[in-house]
């Protein structure tokens, strides 16, 4: 089956308390590139192995957190088809004109049950740096910092993730790759629209619209170790790792940007196909599922969000 409909995560828009510090963190330390700054002061960034215009938007604000998470769909017609399905499901869909973000086509947006704004778009201009396509070298500009290759997924916290599961699988055609069920109900879901183990994940939480982390993919375990060296060298606030997740199998570090938004850099993870059964975890092994080597949750996993 070819990838159709929702293709992949496109961009995350984060709120930052100090733009200058945020830019140093995301460009010099994590290895992203600044593409452009918009008229309203939002700054647009990308990873070197991404074609599209940007994958991370930073907005100066007095509150940290996430404004929205957007996915790219395969065609303009998909936008109309999804809009009808989303509206049928009962969510109010709004429209964002092409160019509201530099380099982006028209977008549709709505709020899901956990309080997060999700958007879809079909077109993005290309921007530099990007992978070469004729007699391509492995990169155009040599990677720097943690050498993030792409913005990969996010983990969001909010209420009513049962409804998120229903919505993403029924309306956006995602699959549930893994889930955690506690004695009192569903705790967490990992959803995919691709052959990755997750493109977005949710954990149940009493407050709406919270960010746990935005994740960036690195080349391999060695790159994760190098990221750990950078985190210590530059006194970046670390949460956990390097370690591995049992869920998705990714090798990972969680750390915080200068505004307290959690970032993840990770490598690996299994290949998911849409006919794969959902992997399930229960209360007795959830610690191993989240942090495979520690085999228990740290204090921050379920309580520290922005």
């Amino acid at each position, binding site marked *: 089956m070819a990838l159709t409909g929702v293709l992949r995560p496109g961009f995350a828009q984060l709120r930052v*308390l*100090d733009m200058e510090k945020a830019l140093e963190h995301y460009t010099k330390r994590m290895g992203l590139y600044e593409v452009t700054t918009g008229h309203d002061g939002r700054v647009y960034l990308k990873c070197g192995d991404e074609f599209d215009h940007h994958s991370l938007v930073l907005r100066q604000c*007095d*509150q*940290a*957190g996430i404004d929205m998470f957007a996915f790219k769909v395969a065609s303009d017609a998909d936008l109309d088809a999804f809009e009808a399905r989303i509206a049928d499901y009962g969510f109010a869909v709004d429209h964002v004109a092409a160019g509201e973000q530099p380099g982006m086509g028209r977008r549709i947006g709505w709020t899901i049950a956990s309080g997060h704004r999700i958007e879809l778009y079909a077109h993005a201009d290309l921007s530099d740096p990007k992978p070469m396509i004729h007699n391509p070298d492995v990169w155009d500009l040599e990677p720097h910092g943690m050498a993030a290759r792409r913005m990969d997924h996010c983990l969001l916290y909010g209420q009513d993730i049962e409804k998120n599961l229903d919505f993403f699988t029924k309306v956006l055609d995602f699959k549930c790759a893994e889930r955690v069920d*506690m*004695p*009192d109900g569903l*705790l967490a879901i990992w959803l995919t629209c691709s052959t990755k183990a997750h493109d977005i994940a949710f954990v*149940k*939480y*009493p407050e709406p619209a919270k960010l746990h982390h935005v994740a960036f993919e690195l080349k391999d375990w060695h790159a994760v170790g190098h990221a750990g060296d950078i985190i210590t060298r530059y006194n970046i*606030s670390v*949460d956990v790792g390097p370690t591995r997740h049992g869920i998705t199998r990714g090798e990972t570090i969680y750390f*915080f*940007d*200068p*505004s*307290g*938004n*959690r970032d993840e850099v990770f490598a690996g993870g299994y290949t998911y196909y849409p006919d794969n059964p959902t992997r399930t975890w229960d*209360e*007795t*092994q*959830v*610690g*191993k599922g989240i942090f495979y080597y*520690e*085999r*228990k*949750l740290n*204090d*921050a996993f*379920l*309580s*520290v*969000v*922005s």
Partner: protein
Amino acid sequence: MTYKITVEGAGEATCYEDERALVAMERAQGFGRLRGLARKLPVGCRRGGCGICRVLVLEGDYRSDPMSRSCVSAEDEARGLVLSCAIYPLSDLTVRLETPCLNKPGILPAAQTSGE
């Protein structure tokens, strides 16, 4: 130059010039100097975004980094209810832990799996 941070009911921390109060408190806990704490010192993002390290400053002067308004309102900040990761002592301080109630019922697992 160092300043003394007295954590009410728990013990004392030594904070160096231009050091976040929370970092000094974490170090003091590691050295066994906050033995009066009922539980582990709540530590989150250490960058003013998550709110879990909230304290009320009862005495002393400090300077601050921006802290997320979703955790600390301007009124809170004015009366000394701040995030300990985002303040830098300018004198000896006395603080009271004011951890927000983030571990809401039904969220934390009843029993976390041990590493054994």
